[in-house]
């Protein structure tokens, strides 16, 4: 299942790219940040390790670029694959505090987005238990789950 850069650009049809820039021009994220979709495809094609770039993580995977590409390059699919390659090679975005918190939450509660006090209150208003019957409630199950996570490279990213 491990895809190489070559697999990714071939499967994504990146060789068909004519560098017209419709992707960058269409990109809603690119207007706000440094993401240059066309440049990512170009770098991938010429053999630069584009998975090391931070901008890769600015894509919201809205698929507008892929929808509009006149050459049917699977641009968003390529970006997702490049992210997988980045994680496998331990390249995480340095600005990624948000994913860091998600990993910490996952480890502590078994849930990327754990129960907030607001939701807890809402639950009691409509007559539900304050906490749902999930892994966070069952301390033994949570310990087992943490054992599964221990040692995964991803955990280091979360500072665990």
């Amino acid at each position, binding site marked *: 299942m491990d895809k190489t850069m070559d697999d990714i650009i071939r499967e994504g049809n990146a060789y*068909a790219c*004519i*560098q*017209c*820039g*419709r*992707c*960058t*021009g*269409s*990109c809603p994220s*690119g*207007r706000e940040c440094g993401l*240059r979709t*066309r*440049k990512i495809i170009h770098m991938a094609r010429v053999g630069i390790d584009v998975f090391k770039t931070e901008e890769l993580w600015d894509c919201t995977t809205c698929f507008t670029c892929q929808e*509009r*590409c*006149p*050459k*049917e390059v699977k641009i968003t699919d390529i970006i997702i694959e490049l992210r997988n390659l980045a994680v496998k090679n331990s390249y995480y975005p340095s600005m990624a505090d948000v994913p860091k918190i998600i990993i910490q939450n996952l480890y502590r509660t078994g849930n990327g987005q754990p129960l907030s006090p607001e939701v807890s209150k809402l639950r009691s208003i409509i007559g539900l238990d304050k906490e749902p019957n999930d892994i966070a409630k069952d301390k033994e199950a949570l310990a087992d789950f943490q054992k599964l996570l221990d040692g995964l490279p991803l955990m280091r990213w979360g500072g665990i």
Partner: protein
Amino acid sequence: MKIGVYVCHCGVNISNTVDVQKVISEVSALPTVAVCRDYQYMCSDPGQEMIAKDIRELGLDRVVVAACSPRMHEPTFRGAVEAAGMNPYCFEMANIREQCSWVHEDKEQATRKAADLVKSSVARAALLEPLNSTEVPVTHAALVIGGGIAGIQTALDIANSGYPVYLVEKDPSIGGHMAQFDKTFPTLDCAACILTPKMVDVARHPNIELLTYSEVESIEGSVGNFHVRIRKKPRYVNVSLCTGCGSCATACRLVGRIPSEFDMGLGKRGAIYVPFPQAVPLRYTIDPEKCLMLKHGKCGTSPKCVDACDRDAIDFSMTEEILEVDVGAIVVATGYKEFDPTIKREYKYGTFKNVMTGLELERIFAPSGPTGGKALINGKVPKKIVFVSCVGSRDKRIGNPYCSRVCCMYIAKQAHLLKEKIPDADITVMYTDMRAFGKGYEEFYERVQKEGIKYRRGNAAEVYEEDGVLHVRAEDTLMGEPYELEADLVVLGTGLEPSDAADAIGHMLHLSRSADKFFLEAHPKLRPVDTVIDGVFLAGAAQGPKDIPDTVAQASGAASHVVNLLSKDVILAEPIVAEVNTDVCAGCRICEILCPYDAHAFDEERNVMTINKAICKGCGSCAAACPSGAIAMNHFRDSQIVAQILEVI
């Protein structure tokens, strides 16, 4: 049976991989082989002479040449044996180059294979039968379908060579798209000034029968003898009485109410109209879809056009006519249509009136157009203008993967014309790649940039509106930065697609289309004006997107091929065709369905199939499918093929 076998070295192309001497010694041992020789280049004069000498001196019955592919040199050797007095169909070719030496590395195995291939050809050669070409008379006239610049040039060239031409055009006037243009790139010649004299020449030429407002209904027959039915649509105006004065058009109740096709819907006409003032013929036509009299049988108290016409030229009782003509050759010049950018929704064509196509802008420039040549878009002079290239071209998503070839240059021309008319206009061209390939094109591109047109690499991604102002978003790919421009006018550089008429005409003539849907030429390099159907030629954008110089060149090329054909009184029909044994044929008609060329005709009286030799291409589909074995393919009879196979298994 005396067979002569000649093994070619093809320089070293064959002899590097095949041991020619070993092949010779094996083949010489065959009982039917009278002589077996080798030579460096069999196709050369000394090589051909070697064969001719043996035919004369040894009295050979059959000749086998083991060399390249028959596609390459079969005609050469057929000619050589025929010159020496042998029937050309007693010649057989073994391909030991493309199918052996070029594709193998092991010399021993390649030699064995080459020997097998030659022996197999010898076995087949022994069973070949002499065949004779039949003579087919040629009708000395031509049909040209399409009255754009391609059809006009083709018709004039053929007519000037002295042959009659029927020029069929579906619209009320000839001229095609070129008549819609204001100026032409890169010389900025006025399109009308260079086109209208040719249109008039067509109308006046004694050898041209101009059939406007007419469509080809059906085509039967084959090279040298096509029978064509042409439908002349009723104009409801007697062309021999009409003087083109235009009183009727001014009088029409619907004047200025119907979108003019010629003006891309931007200008308006009445129900009785000429498409444009320089129309040829300058005769009026009534639009049956719009005319009140023709649609409702009533137009006020009496039709105003009739009242206005001094010559009594209007005739509502006119009906369509079918004209039948015989021609020897046909030129397809059905041209192109502009890509409809509505489906490229991000450009908002059809939503905002100031997003327009290249051809629409062309009409804005034209002195005879809807604004009288003034640069007015919806009544205003645009100051901020953005051109977008490759709309409907180089786009697999909408099924047009090809480059339309003319857009880069017509954009440059239109940008220049806008700058000329509006000197303070801010004009930006957003382009994918700049393709200025023709004579004087690169120079024109440079000129336009010097005039202040901004070229920014990177195509437009989308158009949106905010507070009544259009914005175009793109990336400047040379800076690697996205940007936005405000625009009063967005011009889409729309590409070219085959015209709608191509479907019906292609079907009638059994023409193939390439992947881009344009008509397929017989060979992309060496036969660009021929089709695989003998006697049918291509001219202009029907074969692929083309600018005017290329179209005119191809049109003259097509005309010269037509003249070449028409200059003969008879042509020889290839005898490698299918033949029906009517004693065996059961009349099941399976072959008829399979024939890609419509060469089969069923004889109802005798309940048997017949095959027109002039149409049959010898593909063999029918012979292979015949359940009773009643069809034999000349030169590829079962016995000949079986002998050939048995030798190699």
